[in-house]
């Protein structure tokens, strides 16, 4: 699904990623972790084409993003959903109108079906029904995040990019989110690339984990990474929080 080769990015003269390689296969959930400021969000934004890398290629669905023309990119953008850190909802639109934006852009649905689909998406992410008519400024942080997810899921995309999806959610909502992603993957064959710090959701739903250390990615399953001698990785997974999360694993 995603094939990254030799990706190098530089922000403000500082190299954030140095010849990074990453493959995400169909139906896989890959989590990206790393220290604060190590460039996880930048990596995500580079993959979806918001940042121009200094070098390297990004291929999604086997097509090089930078070689695509306008129409090709537009078609490709319908195939993925993106959830930004703080939801990034359009603040002048209600939640329902926010969800309608990708639906109207990519499809022509009759009005009543559109309303029904919006109601479905609102319910899927666990928002109360009256939240649909509210503006983002009237919602709490966790609700904005769910509304953002509803917009990202609007087209039922086969590929989902999530930036800190469970940060700021209460543990119950975070657990519901994990099971939603798990169910969607089981039935839609959803592929997910997510930046997260939530060890529980890393363990619960990620097949592989990519750790961003020293400007490179170290990729593997949790068991493989546990054997990695790198001090940051050891501190991450063997710290008190990591141990607590791992001990809950079946």
């Amino acid at each position, binding site marked *: 699904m995603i094939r990254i080769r030799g990706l190098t990015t530089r922000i403000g003269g500082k190299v954030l990623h140095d010849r990074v390689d990453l493959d995400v296969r169909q139906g896989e959930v890959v989590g990206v972790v790393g220290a604060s400021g190590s460039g996880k969000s930048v990596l995500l934004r580079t993959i979806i084409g918001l940042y121009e890398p200094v070098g390297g290629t990004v291929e999604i669905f086997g097509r090089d993003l930078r070689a695509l023309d306008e129409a090709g990119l537009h078609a490709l953008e319908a195939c993925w959903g993106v959830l930004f850190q703080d939801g990034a909802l359009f*603040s*002048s639109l209600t939640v*329902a109108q926010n969800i309608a934006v990708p*639906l109207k852009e990519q*499809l*022509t*649905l*009759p009005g009543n*079906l559109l*309303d*029904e*689909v*919006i*109601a*479905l*998406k*609102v*319910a*899927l992410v*666990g928002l*109360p*029904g*009256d939240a*649909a*008519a509210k*503006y*983002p*400024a009237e919602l709490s942080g966790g609700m904005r995040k769910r509304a953002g997810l509803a917009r990202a*899921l609007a*087209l*039922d995309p086969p590929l989902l990019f999530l930036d800190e999806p469970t940060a700021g959610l209460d543990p119950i909502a975070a657990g519901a989110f994990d099971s*939603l992603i*798990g*169910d*969607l993957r*089981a*039935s*839609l064959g959803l592929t997910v690339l997510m930046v997260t710090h939530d060890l529980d959701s890393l363990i619960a739903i990620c097949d592989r984990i990519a750790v961003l250390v020293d400007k490179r990615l170290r990729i593997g399953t949790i068991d493989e990474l546990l054997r990695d001698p790198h001090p940051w990785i050891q501190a991450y997974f063997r710290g008190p929080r990591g141990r607590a999360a791992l001990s809950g694993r079946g």
Partner: protein
Amino acid sequence: MGDSGAGFDMTREEDGFVLHARGDWLIATAADLDRALRRLDQLGAGEHLTLDLGGIDRLDTVGAWLVRRTCGALESRGVANSVENVPPAFAPLFDQVAKGEQPVPLVEAPRNFAAVIEAGLRYVGERTVEAGAAARDLMGFFGLIIVTWLRVLRRPGRLRWVALVAQMERTGVGALPIVGLLSFLIGVVLTFQGADQLRRFGAEIFAVNLLGIGILRELGVLLTAVIVAGRSGSAFTAELGAMQVNEEIDALRTLGLDPVEVLVLPRLLGLILVMPLLTLYADLMALVGGALMSWLELGITLPLFVRQLHGAIGEWTFWVGVLKAPFFAGTIALVGCHAGFRVSRSAESVGRLTTLSVVRSIFLVIVIDAAFSILFARLHI
């Protein structure tokens, strides 16, 4: 049904109808499926329908929900139904979609004439009440600033001197080029137009009187106020508004800092100090423009211009203009900062309130100018 590969076939078997779903039941095909499924409404009560989903290749949440909605609709009309052969991979989707059973309140637009009239009246009424509330708010904010100011006066060390000087630089020095250029041009235009009219009476020398009194009493300070409202008043609103969006103002409060003292006072005081100087500068530039135009167009030399100007203006003419400057400055800073604090957490409200702050401060500046006119007329100056 449909050529997109998604659809279903109906067959009649001994225990009722069977719907054989096939193809991709996805959001992309949902419009066709929706239309086709609505035709099932023809089934009468007492019939039985089996939905056989074995033939579905791909299913997403919308497809799953269409199945569920159809079942619900049939149920409510008394058509017994059952779902069979759900591919195991799709089972969790149906569980997820089951959460989707909730009505979403949709806002209806008014349709008939009475409703439109009512909405119009309500709009006017709401706006009137809002305007009243905004005026009351602004007065409250004014009072708050005075209280804060009195507190700071007792301990002048609390005033943010660095911020004050920085604000004076931004609102004063930064405005010099645009204020100078526009005043110069207004001086040129006023002289030219005045001379053009007065020439008919052979009195073009009085264009200097027109220029002197017009610029010094009214135009110099008004022009400066309008530019400052557009430049600095809007900046105050946008800055404070962005800080409000970022929760920076709440952060200040929790650190025991008074936002009015830290943010508003330097801006207000800086603008009040700088505006008379800007007005003086604007007056000068306009007179320079007028003098240049008089010399080029009317052949009035500089000594003659100065003598004529000196005869035209009284001892109060200049002060009438400059005295108004601090009041205008206070109004612009007050309205700008107040609007900034009223920003809610959305990008749209920053833009709306910035517009509002510029419009409202220019409006108030002109109202105050009119009040001053009346006052000066009573004082005979």
